[in-house]
């Protein structure tokens, strides 16, 4: 299991293999009101006000270089997966097109809006999957992983089967 550190909008998420010393350091250096153990996902969440502290503790026990390598591998895997499933994604896009065209152009339906958003995400992911990893910006990296997550859902796949 690779150790990862991720910054979200509200907190820093630390996912690490079990390390007693790391946990002790986290507990002693960050007040209990600023950290929380998520037992379902098995990750530590630290509030943004202690972000630097959390990163410092993390880098003391885990190699950040390894983390970045794992992240690059994950991005490449996402790209490869999208290229592999290109035909299926194109099918979903055309199914979405058909469904969207069923709505009036004046429609403000939230379902239509969600389908338009998903269509744009998939269309962009097809293009971003072919860009070299070193040139991708954060926005595109997040888009790729969001597209992979979207394609794992049953709702979007059932569209293509109709």
């Amino acid at each position, binding site marked *: 299991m690779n150790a990862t550190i991720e910054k979200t*909008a509200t907190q820093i998420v630390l996912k690490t293999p079990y390390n007693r010393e790391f946990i002790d350091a986290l507990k002693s250096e960050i007040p209990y009101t600023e950290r929380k153990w998520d037992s379902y996902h098995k990750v530590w969440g630290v509030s943004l006000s202690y972000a*630097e502290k959390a*990163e*410092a503790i993390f*880098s003391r026990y885990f190699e950040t270089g390894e983390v*970045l390598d794992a*992240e*690059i591998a994950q*991005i490449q895997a996402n790209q490869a997966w999208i290229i592999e499933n290109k035909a299926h994604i194109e099918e979903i896009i055309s199914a979405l097109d058909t469904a969207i065209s069923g709505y009036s152009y004046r429609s403000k339906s939230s379902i239509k809006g969600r389908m338009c958003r998903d269509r744009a995400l998939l269309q*962009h992911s097809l293009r971003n999957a072919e860009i070299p*990893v*070193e*040139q*991708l*910006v*954060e*926005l*595109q*990296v997040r888009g790729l992983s969001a597209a992979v997550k979207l394609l794992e859902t049953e709702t979007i796949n059932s569209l293509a089967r109709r």
Partner: protein
Amino acid sequence: MTFYANPHRDLPAPWKQKRAIFYAQGLKVYGQIPYILQRRLGAEFFSNSGTIFGGASLLTTSSMEDNYTVVPYRQRDGTLHSQEVLNTLYKWLMADKGFQWAIAVDFHVNIKQWNAWNWPPETWIPGEPEQKEMLVQLFLVSGKAP
């Protein structure tokens, strides 16, 4: 408050020059720099387009700056960036149409210090595309003005 990147504004565009400002604490590049490079440099992306109450967007005024990335001169532990990473940054800056740069008269102003009465200083002075590679590299390494 969540800050978002704008796909129409923050992606690197090959048909136009990038813009960068050298501040005392780091290099400010408008838009986003490549993600892997961003992670290696410990650079942070700042956006002025936020949302309130989980959805309603705050429309920014024309007097606010574009979204930008701040590349610090030192790593978090105080050591210098490796020459390899700096070369990659420089190559990216020079790629396509190159970049325009200016030296800020002021230190980097934190976005959190802005308010309706205190606007960021007017620092942007467009210059010619930079050709003196060594000069800029020295500046990046030493953190001093060329």
